[in-house]
């Protein structure tokens, strides 16, 4: 899988993507990567190397909680879910992101 075909993530959007991916319910790490990849039509690929540090920073901030459960293939896996704090953060960041994107698009079209 060549990384040159996939655009780099905008800085700061990793948290937003993870939060959004978990809105539908708890997922384990691998499923998060997959969900984002599929939802973006293969357009976004999260580096495995940056996923776990990001998840843990979000645990520290209290946006996520984690617990061990059983995966779809009957393996023990750690599932992450949004906390109330995480939901609020998602709303905040999503709103900001929308505004940013709209502003950039505006500039791209008119300037």
């Amino acid at each position: 899988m060549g990384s040159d075909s996939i655009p780099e993530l905008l800085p700061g959007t990793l948290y937003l993507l993870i939060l959004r991916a978990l809105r539908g319910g708890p997922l384990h790490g691998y499923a998060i990567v997959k969900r984002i990849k599929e939802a973006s039509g293969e357009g976004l690929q999260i580096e495995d190397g940056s996923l776990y540090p990001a998840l843990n920073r979000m645990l520290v901030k209290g946006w996520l909680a984690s617990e061990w459960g059983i995966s779809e293939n009957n393996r023990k896996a750690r599932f992450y879910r949004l906390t109330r704090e995480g939901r609020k953060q998602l709303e905040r960041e999503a709103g900001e992101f929308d505004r940013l994107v709209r502003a950039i698009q505006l500039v791209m079209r008119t300037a």
Partner: protein
Amino acid sequence: MALWDEIGRRFAYLFRRAPFDRELEEEMRFHIQARADELEEAGAPAAAALAQARREFGSSLRIEEETRSAWQLRWLEDLGADLRYAARSMRRNPILAAAAAGSLALGIGANTTVFSVAKEALFSRPSCRDPQSLVEISVGRDVWIPMAQYRYIKDANLFEGLGGANIGMVVNWRLGNRSYRLAGTHVTDDFFEVTGIPVAMGRPIRRGDTDVAVITYGFWKNRLAEDPNAIGRVLVLDDRPYRVIGVLPRDHRMLAGFDFIPDLYLTKDTSEVMLYARLPQGMARSAAYARLKAVCGELDRVFPDVNRKWATGLRLSAVDGIERLRENGPMVIPVAAFFAMLGVVTGIVVLIACANVSSLLLARALARARELAIRMSLGGSRGRLIRQLLAESLLLALVGTGAGLLLNLWLDRLMSGIHIPTPLAIEPIIQPDGTLLAYSAAIAFVVTLATGLAPALKGTRSGIAGRLQEGGRESARAGGALRNALVVGQLAVSIVLLSGGLLFLRNLLSAASFNAGFDTEHSVESTFQTGAHSPREFAALVDRALERLRALPGVEAASPASAVPLNPFLAFNRPNVKFRPDGGAREVRVEYNFTAVGPDYFRTLGIPILEGRAFSDADRAGAPEVAILNENMARRLFGGTRAVGRTLRFPDNHDVTVVGVARNCKYVTLGEEGAAALYAPYAQQPDRANVHFFVRGRGASAAMVRRVDESLGDLDPTAAVDTHSMHEVFHGALMPSRVAAATLGAMALIGLLLASIGLYGVLLYAIHQRTREIGIRVALGATPGNVLAMVASESLRLVAAGVAIGLAAAAVAVRPLAMFLVPEVRPGDPLNFVAVACVLALVAGLATVAPTLRALGVDPAVALRHE
């Protein structure tokens, strides 16, 4: 708070690091396995799928590291590592580390103990319910209020409650056929309810109780032998049975503060009381003041008094904190000044210890200069290195403060056992508490910075390249200058401490041989206090007492008097009066010590009458009023002219004739100078319920004291009698000086010891640095004399600088000590400074001996190879 939650989560992480790592590994394994499963489903062989999944995942070690760092509190873990490193390097040189921590501990222990004692003495919270709403009331410019006025104010129901107490009354306790003097606090029956003083056993005094007593823990323990049936026991006090109804807890603190403690509280009507009011919930002091003012206005109509306007000088003051101190102003100032002085002195000792530790750390940092330079050249940040060096001083400061606190606890225990036998005894209860901990933490912080900052900055400065080449010799010289400065500073402050210590020592010596102006070796003083008598009855009682005393074997003279010299608790009245000498128009304002004395007073105490005569039996009530002045008073009123035979007109226009002039002596304190005094005949003074008898004998032995005590006790079993030799009274006056001399002397010695260790270390280090140079000199033919001169001049330079700075500082610093000293000992006396400089030079000389021997022993062959 989100921030606190986050810190909490990070903190929790610290305690589950091992399971965290295990789980993270498992999670990553799962991730790789899940990817491999997917690849396998797409048709790849199992082994190839796993290999590809691993490749895609990348370095799991790096991911682990980064993931962990999301949780870590970097600085905390760094600090832990630095402290461990520091502890290791201390262990390599345990004696130096122990000496450094030990000297810190001495200083910090002494300093925190002064803090604990001062806090207890000045700011202890009295034992009572809700001190915030309890106030002490002054009416008519005085805290003492007669009972009738007290009842009037109380009946006005201004407050939730108004209790009265008369602290420090002498009570005569009859047990079998012996009597004992107790210090009792007379209280109104509602005093305990108003103040809410807690009791440990039994119950407090309640409204309507009569003839009951609440005893203190000390009385229960020492006098009643911890009698388990103490409650209900009857004590005969002042010839009247009182039932014990309660025992106070061990840590009872009086409302009066200062760790005063009576033997018991008892219900008894006294002539006057101090008022304590409980303000109703929500009543501001200003509102209470306004209501009190109105009632005191009525007092002026109901109890008109020319000498006291009840509605003036009203005050409602708190029973604790700074306000209580202000209320007790004149008494507190010397005490607070004394503690301040001790605080400064012990603080200086801490500083001297800091200088030693700093010097030690500097030497260590310089010895590691090469290592530090390499680390910096490899990209180690200077801040990180400074933090590591500071960790060493933090460790020493923590160990020193910890040991200092242990010393503090021990000293506190020691002090808490003290019983100061003032008329109302003082028993300090010193307990460690949160403030002490906070204070110690602050000290540890200051010590860390004071000892560590300079060495850390110095050790990590200067060019890296130069360091690597020179092996740190360049910076060693720069560090040497700093160490020299530290030693000079130590020597200087030691001089200041020594000067203070020497002053107090001289004070003690000269006070011991000091002439108070009266004979302290052949006289006995007895305080005699009875219940209320009519003036005529009391005069008769005094006459009978004198007859009995004169009949005792070995007694040469006896006299009554209204005050005891050098006893601040039984002190002289100190009126401040505008006299008109010879009844003329000229007014002279004099503040003087007043005492009424019997005809034999001057003979009993051996005070010479310089002009005129002493009093005689003819100077009785009804006879013309006469007075004897001391020299100071006579000079102030009549200049150099003869005073005998002249008249003094008081402001109320009555005249008194001067019949004699007595030699000056000490009245209230040993330190007073130029004090004026006026004596009046005892027989011409109106009634008192108490009197002091002075008895002169061939000596003032214990047997004599007992005879006088028993004789007066038998005369009136209801009277409280307290007898001491004048020698004892005089030594009581020396106590503050003795305490100061001992404390300051001890501190000065510790300071001197630490400073000489500092000097020794610096010289030794300097010689170590110059071993090569010395070797070359010796090889080139320098004699032992030359080497000796070299070391001695190094030492001399430091000592001379220290002494010069120290003497200049001491000359200024000891000046305020004058308030504690007898006038004969002047703080500015050059002799002091010469003596101190000599002591310091001697000690410095001793500290130089070992380094000199080391220098003389340098073998050129070895030294030249030294690097």
